[in-house]
């Protein structure tokens, strides 16, 4: 099946690696591939409004599907009301189902 799954577990403020992978996800989406980014662990910080838009708005504009792990949000005290618009809280079962579709996956 076409499409990619990126699992973002790092705080994007920690360094440029996350930004580079987000750029790759965006490029793949612009090339008409279905791309999902799943934010978990410290990657969930990217989902926090209003700071996270700088990372996620370009992805959303490119058509990337962005999911965030509710468990990671809860651990970090981020309420669903404070999540960047367009980012969807999704339990880890949803990530597992995407993997089960055989989509190439990258954890970073």
């Amino acid at each position, binding site marked *: 099946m076409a499409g990619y799954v990126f*699992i973002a*577990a790092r705080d994007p403020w920690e360094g440029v690696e996350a930004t580079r992978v987000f750029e790759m996800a965006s490029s793949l989406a612009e090339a008409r591939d279905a791309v999902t980014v799943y934010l*978990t*662990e*410290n990657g969930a910080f990217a989902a926090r409004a209003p700071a996270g838009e700088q990372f996620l708005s370009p992805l959303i504009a490119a058509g990337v599907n962005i999911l965030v792990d509710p*468990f990671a949000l809860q651990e970090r005290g981020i309420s669903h009301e404070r999540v960047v618009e367009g980012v969807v809280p999704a*339990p*880890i*079962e949803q*990530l*597992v*189902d995407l*993997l*089960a*579709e*055989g*989509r190439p*996956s990258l*954890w*970073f």
Partner: protein
Amino acid sequence: MPRTVLTLVLNDPPYESARTATAFRIIDAAIRRGYDVNVFAYEGAVALAFACQAPHANAVHGRDVAGEDHPTTSAWVREVLELARERSIKLDWVNCGLCVDERGVDDAVRGVRRGSPADLWSFVNTSTNTLVIPTR
């Protein structure tokens, strides 16, 4: 219809990273979804299933072993193996043998087997998908 098989490659040792807890959440969810799971534990991750791990008290907090309720990763390995058995799901957990020898953690919980990167090669070639969880 062929069964869905997910392979996870784990590298982190116990008690070091949130990635370990997330990996167990993925394994647990996959089993509950009815997917077969392969785990290839490499490098420090071979200690996840080390049977000699023991829960401990916490004198600083004034709690005994029961009160501290400190989890061990070997208990989590036992639990996912048991969950898979209950649901007739295949969970094949392989520890890299050389990594085990290097660390002296050969006493793994029952149900975990010793293997080599050849097992990982086989897993990758027969799985629906493979997820590598790196150490960093």
